[in-house]
């Protein structure tokens, strides 16, 4: 599977990654080589094989809806790049 430059730019766009020109060129070659190596999966007939998403028998584990103390707000906001009035501050979302 050979990726075009446009495809690499599209994937970077979906991934929300700003890439340099040099990175786009490098990833185009590397990702193409990796995907080519992975084409061998197509050799296997898997029509009737169910997919495995998790190996455990657990599904949607529930707990009692008991209130518990949350993390301390001040302590959490100490890690924020920008905070104001007890909230995370971000660039304007609406124009």
């Amino acid at each position: 599977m050979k990726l075009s430059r446009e495809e690499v730019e599209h994937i970077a766009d979906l991934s929300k990654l700003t890439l340099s020109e040099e990175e786009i060129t490098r990833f185009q070659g590397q990702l193409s080589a990796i995907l080519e190596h992975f084409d061998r999966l197509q050799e296997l007939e898997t029509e009737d094989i169910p997919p495995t998403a998790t190996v455990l028998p657990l599904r949607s584990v529930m707990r009692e809806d008991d209130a518990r103390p949350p993390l301390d707000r001040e302590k959490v906001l100490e890690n924020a790049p920008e905070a104001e009035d007890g909230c995370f501050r971000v660039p304007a979302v609406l124009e």
Partner: protein
Amino acid sequence: MNDVALHQLTIHEARERLAAGEVTAVALTEAVLDRIGATDGEVKAYLALTPEQALKQARAADERRGAGEGGPLLGVPLAIKDVLCTEGIPTTAGSRILEGFVPPYDATVVRRLREAGAVITGKTNTDEFAMGSSTENSAYFTTRNPWDLERVPGGSSGGSAAAVAAGSCLAALGSDTGGSVRQPAGLCGVVGLKPSYGRVSRYGLIAFASSLDQVGVLAKDVRDAAIMLGVIAGHDPCDGTSMDLPVPDYEVALTGDVDGVRVGVPREYFIEGIQPEVEAAVRGAVDRLAELGAEVEEVSLPHTDYALPVYYLIAPAEASANLARYDGVRYGLREGRESLEAMYRDTRGQGFGPEVKRRIMLGTYALSAGYYDAYYLKAQKVRTLIKDDFDAAFEKVDVIVGPTSPTTAFRIGEKADDPLQMYLADVFTLSMNLAGICGMSVPCGFDDQGLPIGLQVMGPAFAEGEVLRVAHAYEQESDWHERHPDL
């Protein structure tokens, strides 16, 4: 016995001396901190040291012991891989995007170590977000193999493995998504245990691939790995994928007796390209197990060859979702302030290193419209076939043994420019994560350059006791684990 330097003690040796009052936790911790001071400038196993907190914890441990408390980890200096959250101690996952992040809570495994009275010496280096096999993908620096400082320690838990090998902690926690505990253990000549998926809580483990990640242990010998597992294993309501199963006393499994244990040797694990000395050492270990009374037979894991593509589609796909949280809003780096969109893109573009970007791109592609069925769904189906291979093999045998890694430690820089070659370093360890089973690496020899070789012992899900028993019986008959690198 008193001529052994304190930093070289195993946990169980330290346990005896601490209990007998021959040594204090403070003296033991000071010895380990001195060792770090003397060697870590070269080895570079630690990203952050916490000497003051460690000595405080050691004094507290001595007080608890004075008040009649005990326990195998009370006053024992341990290191923590920097992908596990530690309250009040910076946690970076080896990434610039988390530089300066101080977790407001402890991972469950860290909390359990603290409650057991362990002393935490610091946070160890890792490939960024645990993505790598050499620590060369750490955004900070590359850790060096204590057996040869020009070579990698393996990865991603290379800092933890190197710290244990260097005597810069008595044991350490790591994480294993595709071999990240076992492969560096093999390359550094220490013991590495990856528990079954669901055995140990992942709460507070910085997520890489959530259906594969598991917290593991790096230790100086098998008994220490059993002791550590006994403390960290068990159900945690904070992790919906942790199984509510009793935790056995794993030390009870260490009988030294493997008489009649059925040991399978997979023919697919002795492939072209495996270093001849690795194959010879592993075959020698299998012979030793047979001499001890194990029933050795060949088994087949026919889909082994497909594990690498399956893993490198599923793990990046899960990572691409897990790493979406690094958006510059709540923690870590923030760049590109002119708009929200620019902030996301520039924060991630500048904060992530090349391998992390590569995997996010690969995973995003595998999940994207038009390619989902051909890549992601196909990989999940072949994952079923890989798991079925193990289920069938474990109908016939109790454990499976093979090499941990196809080669001994490679030179720093040797594979850095070829991601596919780097991925092949994990070719023997990926399958266990895909199947959710347990596995460990135990030293089984050295190559002619003096580099350690690891034997991998694998068992069915939740059969850690059986795996530890076989690894321990082999270890008792060898002295590889008693050798130390010259530093």
